[in-house]
């Protein structure tokens, strides 16, 4: 099934808005979404599954006397849209006025973005994806015989979004994503490693499946012969995935304006204050070239932008959607996020970028007498989002001794507070990469509590 055309999607969104206004809503906004995804899945060592998922729909927000109603339909047709509008209206009328509601955003020119669409991705056949997945699988198998590729695959998506509201916003944007991933374990004389994982996702058709396969295998093989460590505070290098997991449930929550306004953020009242080591600079960059979350406009039709969060350790800004911004008399930072057509917008980071440094990963390890290299953590979602406190298992992780990776580690927990972690950052590597919404290099943190045996 071919993708819907730009004019077609915009006109459906505009139709929904107009119909809602005709039906007596004070304000209306429609967000249309289309996702066409083809995947090939690896399960237990082989490619045995492929799927094609077509998901489209339209979500409509209506406002009646400052009370909001929302409805959606996954049937993109005028009758279904009319029904959704009526449901949204009925919901708005049943709901309660929100005194802080100050209207939908007004029209601004959309941002310019680069490297977000690649026609080559749309043209990939399932056979092409099978080829990508086998390259990855074969590279894994070649690397180490003790490694078993548990699951993974390759996927190609075309994503499109349109927005229209009663303030005259009307827009369309589209893009592509291609990814491949592989999860592995290694087994040797009764020992099973934890799951190791590698992936590569890009907006343009330039992924390296062989590198992913080989790296997933290397990790699993080197996670064998794991030993316990002592309980003590030590240097920790957090690698890409570990940072993504830890920050997603802590810092990325704490910088959201609704958390701040509602007293749920330890960063409340800290603008202009030092909250991190001075080598830490973080931007939320909605315009990052080829960024996995780069779009011309956010889920409310506000242009995405680059917002400084922390500069040289000093907290500069929170992230806003239209509602939380207007509450403070500010402008939205373009961080209204939508999960397709199914939800109302909520604040989310776009491409949360920790600015790298010039040190190589080897130099980072080389500078540590005793410490841990943590690739992934388990249990980050049980962090306390309000305080930033976490208590997680480091797995897979490796012990660093005298500037070298000595052995794999098992059963080590790390506990602390994300804001202490940020203050104790003593070096950053130059190996920046995109891990979903985070763009980061490895980060060296001093004095992290490690609980071993």
């Amino acid at each position, binding site marked *: 099934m071919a993708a819907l055309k730009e004019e077609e999607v915009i006109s459906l969104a505009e139709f929904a808005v107009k119909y809602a206004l005709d039906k007596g809503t004070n304000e209306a906004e429609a967000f249309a979404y289309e996702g066409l995804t083809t995947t090939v899945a690896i399960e237990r060592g082989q490619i045995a599954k492929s*799927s094609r998922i077509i998901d489209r729909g339209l979500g409509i927000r209506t406002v009646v006397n400052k009370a909001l109603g929302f409805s959606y339909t996954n049937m993109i047709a005028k009758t279904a849209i009319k029904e959704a509008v009526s449901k949204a209206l009925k919901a708005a009328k049943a709901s309660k006025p929100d005194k802080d509601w100050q209207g939908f955003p007004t029209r601004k020119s959309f941002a310019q973005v680069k490297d977000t669409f690649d026609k080559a991705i749309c043209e990939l056949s399932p056979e092409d994806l099978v080829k990508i997945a086998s390259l990855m699988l074969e590279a894994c198998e070649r690397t180490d015989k003790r490694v078993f590729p548990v699951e993974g695959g390759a996927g190609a998506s075309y994503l499109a979004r349109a927005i229209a509201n009663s303030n005259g916003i009307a827009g369309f944007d589209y893009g592509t994503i291609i990814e491949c991933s592989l999860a592995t374990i290694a087994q040797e004389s009764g020992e099973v490693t934890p799951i190791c994982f590698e992936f590569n996702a890009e907006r343009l058709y330039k992924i390296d499946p062989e590198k992913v396969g080989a790296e997933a295998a290397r990790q699993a093989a080197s996670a064998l012969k794991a030993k316990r460590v002592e309980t003590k505070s030590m240097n920790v290098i957090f690698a890409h995935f570990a940072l993504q997991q830890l920050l997603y449930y802590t810092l990325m929550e704490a910088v959201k304006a609704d958390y701040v306004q509602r007293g749920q953020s330890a960063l409340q009242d800290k603008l202009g204050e030092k909250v991190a080591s001075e080598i830490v600079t973080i931007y939320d960059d909605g315009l990052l070239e080829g960024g996995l979350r780069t779009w011309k406009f956010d889920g409310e039709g506000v242009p995405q932008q680059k917002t400084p969060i922390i500069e040289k350790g000093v907290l500069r800004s929170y992230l806003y959607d239209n509602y939380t911004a207007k509450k403070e008399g500010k402008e939205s930072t373009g961080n209204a996020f939508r999960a397709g057509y199914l939800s109302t917008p909520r604040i989310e980071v776009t491409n949360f970028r920790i600015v790298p440094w010039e040190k190589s990963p080897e130099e980072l390890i080389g500078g540590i007498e005793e410490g841990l290299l943590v690739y992934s953590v388990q249990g980050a979602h*049980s962090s306390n989002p309000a305080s930033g*406190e976490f208590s997680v298992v480091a797995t897979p992780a490796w012990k660093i001794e005298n500037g070298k990776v000595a052995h794999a580690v098992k059963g080590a927990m790390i506990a602390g507070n994300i804001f202490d972690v940020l203050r104790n950052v003593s070096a950053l590597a130059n190996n920046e990469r995109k891990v979903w919404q985070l763009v980061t290099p490895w980060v060296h943190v001093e004095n992290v509590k490690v*609980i071993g045996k």
Partner: protein
Amino acid sequence: MLKDILDKIIEMAVQKFGAEYAEARVQTLFKTMLTVKEKNVEAAKEGIENGVALRVLVNGAWGFASVGSFNVEVLADAVSHACKMAKAASLKLKAPIKLAEGKAIEDRVLVKPKKNPSRVPVEDKIRITLSIAKNVLEYDNRVKSCTVDYLDLVGTNYFMNSEGTYIEQDKLYVWSRVLATAKERDVYTFSREEVGSTSGYEVFDVETPEAVGERVAKRAVDQLKAKPPKGGSFPVVLGPNVVGVFVHEAFGHLAEADLTLSGSVLMDKIGKKVASEVVTIYDDGTIEGAFGSFKYDDEGVTAQKTLLVKDGVVVGLMHNRETAKKFNTQPTGNARAEDFRVEPIIRMRNTFMAPRDYSLEELIEDIKFGYYFKSFRGGQANLDGTFQVGIQEGYEIVKGEIGEPVRNASISGNTLETLHKVDAVGRDFELWPGRCGKGQTAFVCDGGPHVRVLEVIVGGSA
């Protein structure tokens, strides 16, 4: 008629495209959602999600297509796509997929709620959610925020396969989650509760806004004076809520046959002792009204009560038809798909440890120093058996008595080592609703009695 259309599509898959097996899963669903933040209704939301999932087995490989349409031409196109996808996937196949034999079933499953959420006006749902938030916020002025999410979904699933099964099954879920934060000086605390049922809106007659609100708020406030736990190995007593998440996360996932086959530590342990003999674990899809219950799974297999561990010995796994074939056993009715967009995978239902004979006092009285962990914040496990469970409500145990509260604790260890260290199991029993993520979200329950564990690693910052 929908049934005739499905017949035609299944026939196409088999006759025209050479599928060994084909199934169509139709979803008609109506959802109501609310989010309340403090005293504001963020938006009242209603939505329709209708669509069809087509899954076929061609040349021993799976093909899958999903579309949001009941139009016969669209479905014919989708089924041809699904078969093409399967053929592409079979190119590099090493071991063709086979399915355990299925019984042809024809059935119509109706839900009979006392209060059908689709007949409850949205105004009433707003009143209940606002009332929960009010109870939380008015409990104590140190409570700073409260978010209440409400969701109900009502609809019918239609399942047809090429082996003669045709099932129409009503679906009903009512769910709510309450989050609260409290603050005093620089201390932030956080508390969460969930309510969930497949019986009907009447769940709020038991889980009243007052009861739920107080539970959430009290915990957030009590945690303010809590101290961080000591890090290290300690004896612990786990409450039913924590036992539930432990049984689900630390053990249950390893016993999902797809993950067992992937190399989980249970792979070579079937029929062997993996826990102390006081440990018996079930995954049960048949508990009436429980959040993880249903009559048929998404492969048309009857849900059953599955014994996983009996007196410390692994006796069963959770299967779909594919893994059941591999293990030369019967499917257990654990194949579940979140919606029509995704394919069914092996998921838990209501997972619990069976009670024995101890009282809470007896479990605690011999512990000189340890912890009592009453309620969890989250948990996660790994195939190698490493688990982590974050604790949102915990206390010290000092000289056989429950002492001061501790905050942001978490426990970790190796599942099998820890199960061997369970030395006493209580006689009480609770089942808690929750949601499990495995790429897709599934509604489940977890639970058990109070349990004593001789030694577990407590992650603390003190």
